[in-house]
């Protein structure tokens, strides 16, 4: 269900940037901390896109691995399970360097060839 809501948000953003052009693919960057199931997102995106300029568009998902940085000792690490305390000093003030992304990086659209069909015979 989570992915259905998120798919609708992706669709709306992609259509706004498509500005009336047909969308062939959407390139996304998704952090592993967003609890998104890639196959499920793909499935729902296919459904919400029906009847829109995104119908049939491919959803390309780049997974961004979570990276944390301890604000106390500066240690950086990649958490295996959701564990946010620094494994070095035990500090709890932790900056999320990567892993929270839910970003549309770009879209690929189809455009008319301007002037291609009006050349004189």
């Amino acid at each position, binding site marked *: 269900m*989570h992915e259905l809501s998120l798919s609708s948000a992706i669709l709306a953003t992609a259509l706004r940037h498509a500005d009336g*052009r047909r969308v062939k693919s959407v390139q996304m960057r998704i952090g592993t901390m967003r609890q998104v199931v890639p196959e499920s997102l793909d499935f729902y995106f296919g459904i919400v896109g029906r009847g829109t300029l995104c119908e049939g568009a491919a959803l390309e998902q780049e997974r961004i691995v979570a990276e944390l940085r301890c604000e106390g000792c500066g240690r950086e690490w990649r958490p295996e399970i*959701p564990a*946010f305390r620094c494994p070095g000093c035990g500090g709890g003030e932790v900056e999320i360097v990567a892993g929270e992304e839910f970003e549309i990086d770009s879209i690929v659209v189809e455009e008319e060839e301007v002037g291609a069909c009006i050349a004189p015979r």
Partner: protein
Amino acid sequence: MHRTQVKVAEDALDANTTIATANRADFDRHGVSVVNFMSAPGAGKTTLLERTLDELEARVGVLEGDVQGSADADRLSALHLPVVQLNTDPGFGGECHLDANMVRSALGDLPLEELDLLVIENVGNLVCPAEFKVGEDARVMVSSITEGEDKPLKYPLMFRTCELVLINKIDLLEHLDFDLDLFLYNLDAVHPGIEHMLVSARTGEGTGAFREWLAGIAARAPAAA
């Protein structure tokens, strides 16, 4: 026809965030603090509100989010507070959470100028509500001990996004195998240092502290413009 790559570089939830910011501005203008109140279904959100809002020393209203029906709003209406029911079924596709736009659609029904605090009781769900800001000042979640010790590890986004966790149904501690220390350990692993309170909506134990906390949030609001 040819293909063009268009750079977007935008969070897919930016549209929601923009509306949440507009909600926030409206709340600020009326001097209302807003709490987004979240949990799994059946964790005890409504009962906790019944227990705490009655004697709260602030003018409080409730926006009640549910997929269907008005059972919770009907219960809270007995407290003689302004309560507005927001159903996600008609008009919003039966969504499993409230988003900023849904909350915005209900603002006209709320007497914001008469409130210090608005509690938005979200749809029961530990996943989607965490993703959608609605214009709140604070996020509070309820995790009841019948749900088990592992919930922070399974739903880290929800537990990380809140600033207070109410651990409810503690009147059942002696009857269950729930390991409170393990739950607190998991909670701290996911959200180091997060504030928590042990409460029982049934007996009222611990709800006084939550009532005081809410009064503190209500006092945070800027004076109405």
